[in-house]
């Protein structure tokens, strides 16, 4: 959920009495937004102060969040929300700047790559300009640098470098005194994100060993190999951080395990992958009802309401034909197909009508 300003109990009570809402300040949002979008109370606003083209398909957005934003630790992600053609879209991105930048200048950066067919990433690239304001959530995630300096290996692929950028910068600033290695896989040398920044870091931070490996520069692809791991001294004593496409992460985990690296020394973070060609994929999937802690599998075109009821749950419902919206619930992840329109939902957090939503792959619902 997006961050809200904490209101005192008395204000909350008064808000309920006068405006039928917990947060009385949000009542004035529609007016405040017109005067200054940074005064909005319903979510934490952040203004775009600069955009930087990193590669042909990757941009860094420098944001200035309202001062009440709570800050973050290196390696964490953040939800942002933007209105695209009238619809509010939430997406998660890693913060690519160091917390020091936020503490000293009140700025954060998001480094975002265009996903093929991606609604939000492409919109951000094409429409999010300096001066625009978006909604920012509080930071979350436990992809964090070890508290006590121990040797570290980062294995990053493509835009999976973004949380690592924040971590390396933080380590350099803290003078983290243990060997740090980065194996950074990119398609071609043109696809290196923040290449200059990485080189500069390596130059001023001697503990860092940097290897940037293009996978498709040669005649045949050159993926992560056991040999690459062999170049990292003391591999088995390192904390290993993986971030990148699923293929790279799976391969890395397999190779690391075969080298006897313990599971608990491996830390992963996933970022959402686009689901191409929705209509050709089969319906059904694992449905997780998060409030009740029940997970059930579904097949075919059973809708979420039927699935929930078959699992013994009794969500609120009404007409069971998509009219009354009694059964609308929060979907926290996964894709559903609207039975009435045949349209696929986004993968992120949004409200769906249980009685006409058919899961397509794994779905999490707040029921």
């Amino acid at each position, binding site marked *: 959920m997006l961050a809200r300003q904490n209101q005192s109990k008395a204000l909350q009570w008064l808000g309920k009495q006068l405006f039928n809402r917990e947060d009385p300040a949000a009542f*004035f949002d529609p007016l405040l937004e017109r005067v200054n979008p940074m005064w909005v109370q319903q979510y934490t606003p952040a203004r775009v102060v600069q955009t930087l083209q990193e590669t042909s398909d990757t941009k860094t957005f420098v944001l200035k969040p309202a001062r009440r934003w709570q800050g973050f630790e290196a390696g964490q992600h953040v939800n942002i929300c933007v209105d695209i053609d009238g619809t509010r879209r939430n997406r998660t991105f890693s913060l690519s700047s160091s917390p020091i930048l936020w503490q000293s200048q009140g700025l954060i950066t998001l480094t975002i790559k265009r996903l093929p067919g991606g609604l939000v990433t492409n919109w951000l690239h094409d429409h999010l300009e300096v001066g625009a304001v978006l909604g920012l959530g509080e930071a979350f995630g436990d992809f964090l640098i070890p508290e006590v300096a121990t040797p570290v290996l980062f294995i990053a692929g493509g835009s999976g470098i973004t949380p690592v950028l924040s971590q390396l910068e933080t380590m350099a600033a803290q003078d983290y005194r243990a060997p740090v290695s980065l194996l950074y896989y990119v398609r071609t040398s043109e696809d290196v994100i923040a290449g200059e920044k990485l080189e500069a870091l390596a130059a001023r931070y001697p503990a860092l060993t940097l290897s940037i490996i293009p996978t498709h520069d040669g005649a045949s692809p050159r993926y992560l190999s056991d040999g690459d791991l062999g170049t990292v001294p003391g591999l088995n004593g390192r904390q290993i951080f993986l971030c990148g496409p699923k293929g790279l992460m799976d391969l890395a985990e397999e190779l690391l395990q075969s080298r006897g690296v313990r599971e608990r020394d491996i830390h992963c973070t996933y970022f959402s992958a686009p689901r191409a060609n929705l209509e050709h994929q089969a319906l059904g999937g694992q449905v997780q009802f998060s409030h009740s802690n029940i997970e059930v599998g579904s097949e075919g075109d059973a809708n979420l309401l039927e699935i929930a009821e078959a699992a013994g749950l009794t969500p609120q419902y009404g007409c069971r034909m998509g009219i009354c*919206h009694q059964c609308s619930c929060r979907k926290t992840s996964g894709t559903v197909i609207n039975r009435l329109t045949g349209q696929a939902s986004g993968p992120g957090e949004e409200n769906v009508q249980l009685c006409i939503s058919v899961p397509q792959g794994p779905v999490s619902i707040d029921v």
Partner: protein
Amino acid sequence: MKTMTEAQLSELERDLNVIRDAVVADLGERDAQYIRRIVRLHRTLEVGGRVMMPFGFIPPVFVAATAALGISKIIENMEIGHNVMHGQYDWMNDPGLHSQTYEWDTVCTGESWRRTHNYEHHTYTNIIGKDRDYGYALLRLSDDDKWKPQHTLQFINYILLSVFFQWGVGLHELESERIRRGEIRLRDKLPFLKDFFRKGGRQAFKDYLFFPLITFPVAPVVLAGNLGANLIRNLWSSTVIFCGHFTQDAETFTEAECEGESKGHWYLRQLTGSSNFTGGKWVHLLSGHLSYQIEHHVFPDLPAHRYPEISEQVQAVCRKHGIPYNTGSFARQYGTVLKRIFAFSLPDRLRARVPALTMGQAT
């Protein structure tokens, strides 16, 4: 009700779905801007009304403040609250405009209204015995209810219902008529009553206690203005809603004829059970576009400001299938509502003797 074969009903369903699909495909920025503009208008009117009210000891200011607050409540209840809670703007994914979380500025809680209105009324529209909105279990508006002597005075009941409309709507889920008949016990309704008193208390506290008290020296003026604003809202919303289903030609249905009905049949029932009235842009805005009650009942979750745009297409579908499209000026439609309330207050024999009081339907 007009009789149609299943094949004709399927065709009707397809024709209406075409209209719906086109609007759904087109939803976007324009609709979001529209509802956000209306929300801003509401906030401006409410803030303006509240700020002006303490200066209401100057008569023209009193009129302006009361009108601003009254109109703000009308817009909030009709064009924002009613429509948002129908899920018309759920696609915007904005928690401030979402059907499951919206709480409106009236006594009825959003939860209760979603059950009684969104579900009961919109699913079982005008089915006598299932749609409790038909006459609000208070008025006899069709032959389906047997005449009793107390119905003679139902015009008074109607006026009281209009004056205290928000409290009537708030108490609708109590199902007092079923408690009277002994079908349910008051105790079953305790959770509902708790919510009712909490929300009703809040509404009364704000308008009749808080705002008068913080402007203490002019408390009577503020109290009178707030009472006036609520009264304006009650009378107007009650009138709009009565014009939507209780006009002379709005049809009623029996449970038997709607058993296991198809979507096409449901559409037919919505078309013939609802009635529109014509008017200027402001009339439509202030009625939450329930002046397009027919379009609303056929497509309750399409943004209401779209109804004027699709009305011509809906009428064309009606013409094609030979289904009446019940519309007329506000005065004409409201006149027939008053006529219906009066006509059914009389015993059937007496009413039959006055040709002017025949209602244009047979069930």
